[in-house]
């Protein structure tokens, strides 16, 4: 029997035969969007905008295939409410005007990245339509084009991870939220160019996944042509283990979650294989799941204390049940921390049946369902306690039936192992079922856009902006700015590397670049660790803070407080913040006067202990001066005053 709780530490990814590939999507910082002349800016919801509501219809391939997820959304009458801000969206985003030719600036950046990765550009670029019907594209498809094939990156260990494809594509609209049948989307992000880099499934450990993502991210930033900030870089994953299948995982927003997600998916696949083996050893066979009867058990729950069930029955709904022969105990088995095999069944019930969830006997009695009701339930479906599991769904009869059919289907898949799925990443590193993997027939040529020949001229343009190799960049940082090896290594990995270089060039003669670097690698990071929303800081605020130090307006010591205040109070100017915090520098004569007073007050002690009394002096004046003048300066003055007193 399988241990119900999953012990993450027990699993070794290498032993599981883990194989993972990455898809990195990074927004490019171009002047215009990919297929129109709109600027690539995100705007506030309160800006002037036009609004309209649309539907999207599932399209059919020649073989009659339709995208199931899209079909369900459409059948439910899902409507998309678009917000088109006039500053950042035009008729192209509204799908009211054909796309313009592909933005060459984006193509050139993509080609530069391709050259840096040793990837071979194609000779003619064809824009494709990838069908995506969740409303995030007004057209119902994402425009995407492969610009190069092949290439590789190298990890610290010397291991190489292959690159399969490099594509340039349009970003999707920004989801604002859902409201009944309506999903709201903002069109500012739609059409911003993205570069998509897909690696081969050469990744064998969760750590390698992290390092590969980091390495690619760094290379992209070294072009100086990519956007940064929340949502400007996104990762998708595919993961398989030995004996498993390739699962796609979408929407990993945080890089530090990558290793966890990879590990958890490997464990999930292993656990599902263990469940399969357990079922087979119990003698459960596929045929036994073929003609399972779905039974109406509403009668069992006519006086139920379960609020959920009572509400459904009152509305005229039904409680339907199905027996899963030989599944006893397995629905309660965790496949990932906190997610049980029963959760996987529930995901299918929700997707195919549109129900809220399921109940199963591995978690009953509970949720207001009594032991007595469970007894009757077993009886009603002719199941054996301790051998079979029973799953029930309470909803309208039609939905409940579809949900249970999906549960049976998923249970049947358990005998084979792992279904081919697209899963969505969750905040805790686990994943949930999103949809079956779409078929290959969802890619069509974008007939409105002529192909673009990759000419010598385009490649020449690209060559001019090929990002430097990290090793070369590191040397340059050390040499040009006098950074230590350690600091240079840190800043080269920082998202704000470009800002550092700009500020170091501008203010390096007044403040040492090492200090400027430490603002990013040290101050901002520790503020972020303390939970201060440093993402609220824009480049100009950081620059003004550093300029204030350079001009002697504030002391270096005051910078953390200043940045913290600015991050917590968006919309405040640096000057306002300085005033509010009272951290303007004081002039040296004031400092001298204060030190004089302290020395006088501590005269006896100073005469007795000599320089050892320095800390006492400092202790008196610093509370009033902290942040306004450097401690080092105060200490120097105090030492001088003590020396004077001692007559040395």
């Amino acid at each position, binding site marked *: 029997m399988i241990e119900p709780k999953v012990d993450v530490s027990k699993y070794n990814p290498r032993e599981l035969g883990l194989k993972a590939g990455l898809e990195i999507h990074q927004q490019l910082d171009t002047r215009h969007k990919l297929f129109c002349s709109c600027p690539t800016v995100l705007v506030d919801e309160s800006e002037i905008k036009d609004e*309209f*509501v*649309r*539907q*999207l*219809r*599932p*399209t*059919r*391939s*020649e*073989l*009659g*295939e*339709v995208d*199931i997820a*899209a*079909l369900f959304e*459409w*059948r439910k*009458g899902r*409507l998309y409410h678009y917000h088109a801000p006039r500053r950042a969206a035009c*008729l192209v985003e*509204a*799908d*009211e*005007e*054909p796309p313009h030719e592909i933005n060459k600036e984006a193509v050139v950046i993509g080609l530069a990245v391709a050259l840096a990765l040793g990837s*071979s550009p*194609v*000779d*003619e*670029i*064809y824009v*494709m*339509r*990838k*069908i995506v*019907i969740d409303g995030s594209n*007004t*057209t*119902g*498809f994402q425009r*995407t*084009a*492969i610009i190069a*094939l092949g290439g590789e990156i190298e990890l610290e260990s010397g291991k190489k991870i292959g690159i399969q*494809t490099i*594509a340039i594509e349009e970003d999707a609209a920004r989801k604002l939220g859902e409201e009944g049948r309506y999903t709201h989307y903002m069109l500012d992000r739609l059409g911003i160019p993205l570069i998509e880099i897909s690696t081969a499934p050469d990744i064998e450990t969760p750590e390698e996944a992290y390092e590969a993502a980091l390495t690619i991210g760094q290379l992209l930033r070294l072009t100086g042509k990519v956007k940064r900030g929340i949502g400007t870089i996104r990762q998708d994953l595919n993961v398989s283990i030995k004996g498993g299948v390739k699962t796609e995982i979408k929407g990993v927003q945080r890089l530090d979650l990558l290793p966890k997600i990879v590990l958890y998916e490997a464990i999930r696949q292993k656990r599902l294989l263990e469940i399969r083996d357990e079922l087979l050893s119990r003698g459960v066979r596929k045929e036994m799941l073929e003609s399972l009867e779905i039974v109406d058990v509403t009668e069992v729950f006519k006086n139920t204390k379960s609020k959920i069930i009572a509400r459904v029955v009152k509305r005229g709904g039904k409680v339907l049940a199905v027996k899963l022969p030989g599944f006893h105990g397995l629905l309660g088995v965790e496949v990932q921390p906190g997610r049980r095999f029963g959760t996987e069944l529930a995901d299918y019930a929700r997707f195919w049946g549109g129900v809220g969830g399921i109940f199963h006997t591995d978690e009953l009695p509970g949720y207001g369902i009594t032991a007595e009701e469970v007894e009757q339930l077993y009886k009603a479906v002719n199941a054996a306690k301790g051998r079979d599991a029973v799953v029930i769904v309470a909803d309208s009869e039609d939905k409940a039936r579809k949900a249970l059919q999906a549960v049976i289907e998923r249970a049947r898949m358990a005998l084979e192992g792992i279904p081919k799925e697209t899963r969505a990443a969750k905040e805790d590193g686990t994943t949930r079922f999103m949809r079956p993997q779409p078929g*290959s*027939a*969802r*890619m*069509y*040529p974008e*007939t409105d856009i*002529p*192909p673009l*020949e990759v000419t010598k001229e385009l490649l020449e343009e690209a060559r001019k902006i090929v990002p430097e190799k990290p090793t070369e960049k590191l040397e340059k940082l050390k040499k040009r700015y006098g950074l230590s090896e350690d600091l240079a290594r840190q800043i080269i990995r920082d998202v704000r590397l470009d800002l550092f270089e700009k500020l170091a060039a501008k203010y390096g003669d007044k403040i040492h670049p090492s200090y400027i670097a430490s603002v990013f690698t040290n101050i901002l990071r520790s503020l972020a660790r303390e939970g201060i929303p440093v993402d609220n800081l824009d480049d100009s605020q950081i620059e003004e803070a550093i300029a204030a130090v350079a001009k002697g307006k504030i002391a270096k010591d005051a910078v953390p407080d200043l940045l913290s205040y600015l991050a917590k109070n968006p919309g405040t100017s640096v000057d306002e913040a300085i005033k509010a915090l009272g951290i303007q520098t004081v002039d040296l004569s004031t400092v001298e006067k204060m030190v004089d007073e302290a020395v006088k007050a501590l005269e006896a002690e100073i005469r007795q202990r000599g320089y050892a009394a320095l800390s006492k002096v400092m202790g008196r004046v610093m509370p009033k001066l902290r942040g306004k003048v450097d401690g080092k300066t105060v200490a120097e003055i105090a030492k001088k005053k003590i020396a004077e007193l001692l007559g040395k």
Partner: protein
Amino acid sequence: MDEAAGYTGVALELLKRAGAKPGDRIRITRSDGRVFEGILMPRYALSAKPIIVVKLDNGYNVGLRVDEKTVVEVVKTRETILKEAAAGAPAAIPLLEETPPEERRPRITILGTGGTIASKVEYETGAVRPAFSAEEILEAVPEVGFIADISARVVMNILSENMRPRLWEKIVDEVAKAIEEGADGVIVAHGTDTMAYTASALAFAFRKLPVPIAFVGAQRSSDRPSSDAAFNLIAATLVAAKAPFAEVVVVMHGETGDTYALAHRATRVRKMHTSRRDAFQTINGRPLAKIYPFERRIELIDEPLRSRGAEELEVANGFEEKVALVKYYPGMEPEIIDFLVDRGYRGIVLEGTGLGHVGEWLVESIRRAVEAGVTVVMTSQTLFGRVNMNVYTTGRKLLQAGVIPAEDMLPEVAFVKLSWILARTSDPGEARRLFAMNLAGEITSRHTVDLYPRWPH
């Protein structure tokens, strides 16, 4: 391998040698040692560049440069690929699970003239193929089956810009046939570029009409999820099946969103935008009705000219092709008018400036045209408003020369109307009398203050 796939030169030579045709899976071994495999795609446009386009296994197309040393081989033929794909394909899932209840529904005939109101995407090349049997329409837009029992046939398959008066006549005949066969409404699927012309041609040809005729088209092709085709078709079906009027109308999106469609009177409608869904607008009037396809509701806005079932069918088919629509521009030479007269044109519709003017140096050649028996009418480039040729001297001179003012008629409608009239009579006096009559709602005697759009400012 035929040249239609767009290949020329070295690329064509290589493909011929390999016996490869679009849809085949091919392997390209280049002289630089790189090997590619994928489905051979047709070339986008004729181009002399030595590039072969393949669809890779991930679905993407890429163009690959080839030279004499490149080797192309066919790995698998299109036929084999299709057979294997069909064998592995799951059963097709219908768009809607419900089927229409057993009951008598209005009978609608859908006539196809071109454009893609319903279409299928070709599996291996991604090319769009129009679908036009009733079964195919119901498969693509099953909602239609809940509103009406439909039959469908393709009358012609042409691009809308290639439409001509001879073909209007064919459409008139086919629509008349459908009505005689008992249709409760007729839908004409038409490319949008010249849809308004054809619709107004039918409005003149059907002198008496017992049922509505709805023209419908799409501004976004029907192979894309965001297409307006299905929405417009459902709205047109509602009009054909349920509308209380018996007029020729154009049914298209009412606004950029998918909320309602508008039924525009054929003689009042104009395509006013190159690409928007709501490109069709009623000029100098109000649309006839608003249609809510999801609620299956029709809301009348304007007074119908003819009610459903009020009269028997009466058709007067035939259009004169020797009619020209001439837009006046500053500096236009009289020889343009002279040329038309010399070539035997029987009617000229002028699209003049403002209240209905052309450069005064044209007056003489216009006078000669009228004397030669050519009917000359005047419309305005402003589209909005009515011509009035009594206000300025040039206008008065043109009237004197025999020009007929076309009231508030749209230039295109005046053109169709004159074409229809000149096919009925060879007497200029009779033509003048008929032209002044309001035959199909093309003239509106009252314009209220609100009938003019305010542009953003």
